[in-house]
C-alpha cells in the first residue's frame, strides 16, 4: 500500500510558494488546452495533467534540469513547462503552429525540448520505455552521472517491451527511474480490469529492482520521495521503480466526454477532495505561511499569465504547406508529390 502521506514541514516558505505557483501554472495551462481543444484550435488527441500536478512538480524540482534526462508518454505538457520550456512555444505546438517546438509536426502528444533534455512526448503505450533506458544507457556509456526519469502510465506497465526494458536496466545497471503514474485508468479501463497484480511497483521485483509505491497527491511528499530516490539512483547507478498513486480529474483525453461510462460522478467528487493544489493551500493557511488574499492574488496573476501566453501563441501562423517535407531526414528531402 501507499505509504501514509505526511507533510514535510522542513520546506521553506519560498519553496512552498514556488511549488504552489508551479502547480497553478500547470493547471492554468492545461485548462486552456482543454478550452482550445473545444474551440477547435487544437485537434487530434490531447491529454491533460489536471489532478496530477504534484507528480511533475515534486520530481522535476529534484533533478538537474538541462543535465538529467526526462522522457514521458503522451500526457506531456507539465514536465517541459516546469523545465523552463517556453509556454508560448508549447501552446503553439499544441495548436499546430509554426512557432511550436516541432513546428506543428508533433502536436500535443509529441512535445520535445532537447535544449533542456526533455525527450517527449510518445504515442505508443509503453513504446517509449526502452528509449528511456537508452538515455540512461548513453549516460552510463559516457561515464556521466546523469539520471533519467521515465514516466509511464499504469496501462503501460503491462507492456511486454517494458518488462524487456526492466530486465536490461537491471542487468546493465542503468540509472533510470521508472515512474508509474497510477491514475487508476488505462484510458477507460480501471486498474483492476487491466492488471492481474494491481500493485504495479512489483513489476520490478523479479529483476531485483528497488521499488516502492507512494502517494502522488501531496506535492511535499512527492518532492521528498523524489529527492531521496534521485539522489540514490545518481549515487548507486541502478534503476528504480516508483508507483505514484494519483487520479486524473479530467478524462483520458480532451475528446473523452463520456468518462462517466467508466466511473461515477460520485467517485470523481470524492477524488477531487484529494486535489494537490487545495491540499497545499490548506497546509499553508493552517500553518500561517500564506494568507487567502495572497493566494488569490497569485491565482489571478497566473490566470493572466496563461491568457497572455496563449494569446501570443495564437498569433503564430500555421506552417507553410511546403514545410511538410522538412525534417524527414537530416540531410535529404523525401520524394515530393502525390
Amino acid at each position, binding site marked *: 500500500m501507499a505509504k501514509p502521506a505526511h507533510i514535510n514541514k522542513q520546506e521553506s516558505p519560498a519553496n512552498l510558494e514556488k511549488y504552489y505557483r508551479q502547480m497553478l501554472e500547470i493547471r492554468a495551462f492545461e485548462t486552456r488546452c482543454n478550452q482550445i481543444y473545444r474551440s477547435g484550435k487544437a485537434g487530434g488527441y490531447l491529454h491533460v495533467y489536471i489532478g496530477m500536478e504534484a507528480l511533475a512538480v515534486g520530481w522535476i524540482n529534484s533533478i538537474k534540469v538541462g543535465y538529467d*534526462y526526462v*522522457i514521458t508518454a503522451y500526457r506531456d505538457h507539465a514536465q517541459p513547462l516546469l523545465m523552463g520550456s517556453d509556454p508560448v512555444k508549447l501552446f503553439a505546438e499544441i495548436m499546430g503552429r509554426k512557432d*511550436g*517546438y*516541432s*513546428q*506543428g*509536426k*508533433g502536436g500535443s502528444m*509529441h512535445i*520535445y*525540448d*532537447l*535544449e533542456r533534455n526533455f*525527450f*517527449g*512526448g*510518445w*504515442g*505508443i503505450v509503453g*513504446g*517509449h*520505455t*526502452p*528509449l*528511456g*533506458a*537508452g*538515455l*540512461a*544507457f*548513453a*549516460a552510463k*556509456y*559516457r561515464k556521466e552521472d546523469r539520471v533519467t526519469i521515465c514516466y509511464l502510465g499504469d496501462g503501460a506497465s503491462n507492456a*511486454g*517491451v517494458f518488462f*524487456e*526494458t526492466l*530486465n*536490461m536496466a537491471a*542487468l546493465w545497471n542503468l540509472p533510470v527511474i521508472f515512474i508509474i503514474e497510477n491514475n487508476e485508468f488505462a484510458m477507460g479501463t480501471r486498474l483492476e480490469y487491466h492488471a492481474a497484480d494491481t500493485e504495479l511497483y512489483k513489476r520490478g521485483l523479479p529483476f531485483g529492482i528497488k521499488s516502492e509505491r507512494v502517494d502522488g497527491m501531496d506535492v511535499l511528499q512527492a518532492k521528498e520521495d523524489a529527492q531521496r530516490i534521485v539522489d540514490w539512483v545518481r549515487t548507486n547507478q541502478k534503476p528504480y521503480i516508483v508507483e505514484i498513486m494519483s487520479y486524473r480529474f479530467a478524462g483520458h483525453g480532451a475528446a473523452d466526454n463520456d468518462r462517466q461510462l467508466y466511473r461515477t460522478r460520485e467517485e470523481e467528487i470524492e477524488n477531487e477532495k484529494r486535489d494537490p493544489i487545495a491540499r497545499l493551500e490548506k497546509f499553508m493557511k493552517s500553518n500561517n505561511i500564506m494568507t487567502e488574499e495572497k493566494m488569490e492574488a497569485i491565482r489571478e496573476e497566473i490566470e493572466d499569465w496563461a491568457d497572455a501566453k496563449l494569446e501570443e501563441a495564437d498569433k503564430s501562423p500555421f506552417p507553410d504547406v511546403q514545410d511538410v517535407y*522538412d*525534417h*524527414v*531526414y*537530416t*540531410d*535529404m528531402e*523525401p520524394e515530393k508529390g502525390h
Partner: protein
Amino acid sequence: MQEMTYRDALRQCIIEEMDADPEVFVMGEDIGRYQGTFRVTQGLFEKYGGDRIIDTPIVEPGFTGIAIGAAMTGLRPIVEMMTMSFSILALDQIINHAAKIHYMTGGQASVPLVVRGPGGAANQLSAQHSHSIEGWYAHVPGLKVVAPATAEDAYGMLRTAIRDNNPVIFTENPGLYSIKGEVNIGEGVSVLFGKARIAREGTDITLVAYSRMVHVSLAAAEKLAEEGISCEVVDVRSLLPLDTETIFNSVRKTHRAAVVYEDWKSGGFGSEIASRINENCFDDLDAPVGRVGGLNVPMPYTRNLELECIPNDSDVIDAIRKLI
C-alpha cells in the same frame, strides 16, 4: 586493394569506425562472447570488451529501443539483428520511433542508428528465418535502406551508414557473406547512398536488381550473351534513397526491363521499381516491365522446395525470353 570476403569487409569497416569514434558501439544477440551467428563480429569482443560489444537478451523490441534512445543523445549504435526476420519484432521501435523522431521533434533530435543483419534465405532456415523484408522498410519515410551486393560495397556502404545521422537499415543476404572481392580500404573510402551501379553494360534489356539477385542477374546475362542477347545489369544498392535516374537512363537505352528480387513477388520492392519505370519510361518501352520475384509462399524447409522459391538464373532467363 585487398581481397576479402563480404563478411570480413563488414568487420573491417566496423573496426575502423570503432577505432575512429568512441561513440560507435555494437549491440545484439550473441555478437560478443559467441562471436556472432554469421561471424561478422568475430574477435570484436576480445578487442573492445563488453562495454562496446554488447551481448543482449533475445528481445529485439527492447534492445532496439535502448539503442534508439542512446542514439537520440548522439551515440552511434550498430544493432545487429541475428536475422532480419527477427527485426519484425522490433518494427514498432524502428518504424513508430526511429523513423519518425527527426520529424516529430521538428528536427531537434536525430537517430544515427544502423540496424544490420542477414536478410533473405540461407540454407534451409525455413519460414521464420528467411524473410527479405527490405521492401517493408523502404516503404517508410525517415529510414534509409541499403542492400549491398559486393564486398567492396559492403565495406564502403557500412561506413556511410555508420556516419549517417539517420536510421539506416543495412541488409546483408546470408548467401553473400562468403563471396570475395577486391576492397579498397581506408579512412576516406565510402560509397554514398542513392547511387546505383552499372554492374554490367548491355544494350538489349535492363535487369534491375539488388543484393544477391545482382549475382543471379549477372549469371543470367552471362548465359544470354552466348546467344547474342546483351543485358545491362543495374545494381540498385540503395533502395531508399533510390537512384531512379540510373535505372531510367538504362531503360531508355535498352527499351526493355525486368526487375529481379528475392522478396515475395507480390508487393515486394521490385514491384515499386517496376511501377516507377512504367510511370516514367512508358514511351521508351518496347515491352511491359517484367518482374522476377520470390514465390508467394512462406519459405519451405526442404532444400529442393527452398530453391524453387528463390529466383535463379534460369528464372531470369525465362522472363527475359518473354520480353525480347
